[in-house]
């Protein structure tokens, strides 16, 4: 693992304002002074209770939320994202083939034949049979859908992927298969992940380093074994105890 970086966050503070069209509501801070790096080739875990700002952090990195203070520095092209719920992340009106080709169509640089070739190649990489191309998402299992989501996120060959609870909606056996796939793809396609999860066991299996987040702050970060075996913060100990 090199020390080359794919992403840096420097003192990022982010929030939103409540209230509607006519009334300006109170300012609600979600992320507070968040600083961390994602290194090339690593799988960085992000753990914390729900409501602690993990998804807002993902949205801030993706540029869907503008940070109020601090900066988000991308060293690679735009990252892609895998969502938690494989049932709402694939457009039910289209076939898998169409869904996988769509990012390339939007990109608009490849002729149709090249797009089709890349789609088939990516389908093989996520270990799905060719028949899936003509199937609609409704005909697939949860695990297959998540494979399609992964393929769709990777088809434009990003170097960095954000996975927001990608296995928490799946059965344990399917979870293990998807985690294996993510690991294989990381090695084959030279990827780095930010892996958001509330499941510490999954993070322990998959991740190299981990960030512990509480109420919008990073309270502890380091190598997974260090954090899990010798937690310094009381909050981390609490999380670990709850996961036992």
């Amino acid at each position, binding site marked *: 693992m090199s020390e080359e970086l794919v992403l840096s966050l420097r003192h990022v503070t982010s929030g939103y304002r409540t209230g509607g*069209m006519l009334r300006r509501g109170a300012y609600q801070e979600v992320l507070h002074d968040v600083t961390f790096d994602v290194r090339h080739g690593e799988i960085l875990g992000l753990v914390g209770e729900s409501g602690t700002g993990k998804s807002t952090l993902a949205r801030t990195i*993706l540029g*869907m939320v503008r940070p109020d203070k601090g900066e988000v520095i991308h060293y690679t092209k*735009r990252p*892609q*994202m895998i*969502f938690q*719920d494989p049932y*709402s*992340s*694939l*457009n*039910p*009106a*289209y076939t898998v083939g169409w869904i996988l080709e*769509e*990012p390339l169509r*939007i*990109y608009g640089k490849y002729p149709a034949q090249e797009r089709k070739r890349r789609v088939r190649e990516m389908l093989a990489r996520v270990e799905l049979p060719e028949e899936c191309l003509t199937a609609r998402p*409704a005909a697939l299992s949860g695990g297959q859908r998540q494979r399609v989501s992964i393929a*769709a*996120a990777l088809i*434009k060959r990003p170097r960095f992927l954000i996975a927001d609870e990608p296995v928490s909606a799946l059965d344990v056996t399917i979870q293990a298969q998807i985690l294996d796939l993510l690991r294989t793809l990381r090695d084959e396609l030279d990827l780095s992940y930010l892996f958001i999860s509330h499941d510490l066991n999954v993070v322990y299996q998959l991740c190299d380093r981990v960030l512990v987040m509480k109420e919008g702050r990073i309270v502890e970060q380091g190598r997974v074994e260090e954090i899990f075996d010798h937690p310094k913060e009381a909050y981390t100990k609490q999380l670990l105890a709850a996961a036992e």
Partner: protein
Amino acid sequence: MRHWNGYLRAGTILLAILTAAIVVGCFWTPYDPTAMSVGPAFDPPSLQHLLGTDRFGRDIFSRVLKGAGTTFAIAGATVAVGAVCGTAIGALTGYFGGVVDGVLMRLGDVLTAFPSILLALVIISILGPGNKYNVVIALGLVFIPSFARVTRTAFASLRDVNYVKSAQLMGASSLRILCVHILPNTLQVLLPAVTIGFNNAVLAEASMSFLGIGVTPPDASLGYMLSEAQSMLSAAPWYALGTGAAIVLLVFSVGLVGEGLQRRGGEVA
């Protein structure tokens, strides 16, 4: 069509028969619908004149065929105007939200607060009565708010769905997201709304022509014929009955299709 059901099947068959009859009526009718004295006046239904004749000895069956065509065309055009404009407005306001959304939807509320026939009357009197294109424009405008509201709700509910977020992340344009990613998923809500709108348009056109502000001779719609039939109700009841039955059949078949589509949407979702 992936899922058929009884409603959809019955409605489609009935509608296909009616449409075929209407199409035939555009090119050929048993008698010239406007020719007088093709038979004796006030002749009751018989094999020569399936729905009898009126005061002037005109063949009512031929008139109903022709009139149904006019009604069908006006209702179709009205729904097209209302659905296309309403869907465009609803899609934009539902997806983008914000101030424009608030203003347009309140404007829609104001429009829906008027009885629709009254509103159409006002628009007709501004545009000038007695022209079928003005009827289409007036009714079409009246229909826009209801389509806009249905579409807005559908688009707003899909705005934050993950596959839409993915498309945004991939850099798809807003137009592409609206038309390619969201629109196909709103069809199961929009298509039933179109069928309901079509029926309302048939009835609204009939009411307006009945009141004498819709279609005028030489065009004859079912509504116009119904108002004509009223004056000879006791001498030729078959005129009103035949014309009324045509309206009922048309509305009924489209209603069945709409119900079928709605139920199919329920099954799929």
